[in-house]
């Protein structure tokens, strides 16, 4: 065991926490869609990728901060999500998982190749953001873009949690998740709940993308990383709702940061998937799974 400087360790845990919060936000939309609709959406990560490009285009065209583009991209993505739902997803509701996978993988390929065609393989970054200054607190320094991304993610997770537990729409969504047919017997328009859930889940990827663009760049393969990451978080979070997503995201973020400290940046994803592997080995229903 090699010696690790305790302040470096603390620094990395803090980095991991803020990264983990953002990861939770990335996975939140997928968790909602999977939880309520039982749809396996493999294109989720590529929604983040499209969001990143949209952020890039809007930020550079109108010279606004990438984080602020979320006010425009979120409503656009809400509508985009509903259109995707109506055109593609509604037709495969209740179909065999293999058909749902085929359809959403097809969507993923279309989005990825469109991005390659329009923007080419070279990553595109927004050259300006208001969050450039690092913030120092005692022994810890954190990039303000990461700090803002983490805080905004936490607020978004909190708002979605409140939506699900405190509002009529939330009750309707959870009732539909629990038993679709009985939800209809309650007078719930299940198709509309599905459309709104898909729209909301998609619009959350636009927020995540805007935050990612304050410190990172858009490239056509962004979906690969964030798609897999989201699946890991949702699988680990199991049926734990927003709290489950938050906990899994934080675990992934911290483990990733520790992996980078101890082994090096190259091993980043190795640790994520090893953790995933072991958690599902010992708890196949996820950390919060009860059923």
């Amino acid at each position: 065991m090699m010696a690790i400087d305790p302040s470096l360790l603390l620094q990395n845990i803090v980095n991991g926490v803020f990264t983990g919060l953002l990861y939770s936000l990335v996975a939140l939309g997928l968790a909602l869609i999977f939880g309520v609709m039982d749809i396996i959406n493999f294109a989720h990560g590529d929604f983040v990728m499209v969001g990143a490009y949209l952020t890039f285009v809007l930020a550079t065209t109108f010279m606004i901060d990438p984080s602020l583009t979320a006010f425009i991209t979120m409503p656009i993505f809400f509508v985009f999500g509903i259109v995707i739902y109506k055109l593609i997803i509604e037709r495969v509701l209740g179909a065999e998982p293999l058909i749902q996978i085929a359809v959403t993988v097809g969507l993923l390929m279309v989005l990825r190749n469109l991005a390659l065609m329009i923007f080419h393989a070279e990553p595109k970054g927004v050259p300006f953001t208001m969050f450039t200054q690092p913030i120092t607190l005692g022994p810890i320094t954190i990039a303000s873009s990461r700090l803002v991304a983490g805080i905004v993610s936490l607020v978004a997770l909190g708002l979605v949690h409140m939506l699900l537990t405190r509002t009529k729409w939330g009750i309707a969504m959870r009732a539909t998740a629990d038993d679709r047919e009985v939800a209809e017997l309650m007078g719930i328009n299940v198709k509309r709940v599905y459309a709104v859930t898909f729209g909301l889940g998609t619009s959350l990827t636009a927020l995540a993308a805007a935050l990612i663009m304050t410190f990172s760049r858009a490239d056509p393969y962004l979906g690969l990383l964030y798609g897999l990451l989201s699946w890991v978080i949702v699988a680990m979070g199991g049926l734990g709702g927003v709290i489950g997503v938050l906990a899994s995201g934080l675990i992934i973020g911290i483990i990733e940061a520790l992996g980078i400290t101890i082994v090096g940046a190259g091993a980043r994803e190795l640790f994520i998937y090893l953790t995933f592997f072991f958690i599902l080995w010992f708890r196949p229903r996820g950390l919060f799974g009860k059923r």
Partner: protein
Amino acid sequence: MAREVLVLDKINAGYGEFHVLFDVSLKVHEGEIVALVGPNGAGKTTTLRTIMGMTTLYSGKVLLNGKDVTKIPTHKRIELGITMVPEGRRIFKTLTVYENLLAGALTKKAQQRFQENLELVFNFFPKLRERRNQIAGTLSGGEAQMLAIARALMSDPDILLLDEPSLGLAPKIVIQVFDIVKKLREEADKTILLVEQHVKHSLEVADRAYVLEQGKIVLEGEAKQLLTDERLRKAYLIL
């Protein structure tokens, strides 16, 4: 005779290609308790599901308060004053007891009468008031059945379809369930269509009954008379 709340007119229905009901006609008048009995697989549940618009309807009509609802989707029928307590209770297990009641009251009509209906439900089932913040999946079988009925009452229905409400419950609880069916009419002014395997109990609480066999109505009449019907007594071992 009182107003006809529910009319099935020569219903032919099933699931996809699988024809289950053949020319089923029945009526339920306001304030009545009507029992629908018959052996397993006769089509009792299919009849209730057809009334709610959850099957494939080949021909025939469903009238609710005189209105043809045949083409109206399930979720919109609730607003028209009908709902079903499905077989096996099917409460929302991951929601709390109170959230289950909220889920039952999402229609506009139900929203307006929310407080009244909540009071009614808590008076009927005081256990639910005690357990309002408990996760519904942790309730006992009897309590879950009470919650399923309570949840249905929250939508403020005129007529309630009950599918095997005593299924899988302890004998003592079964008696309670039939008491509740009577109370629903007497104290909450509900009209009831009851599907049950406990034929004798059902005929004792019902005003009228229909006997369904192999997707066809084979016998109908006053419940008290059917109780003494020799054929029925033999078929269902009513001793």
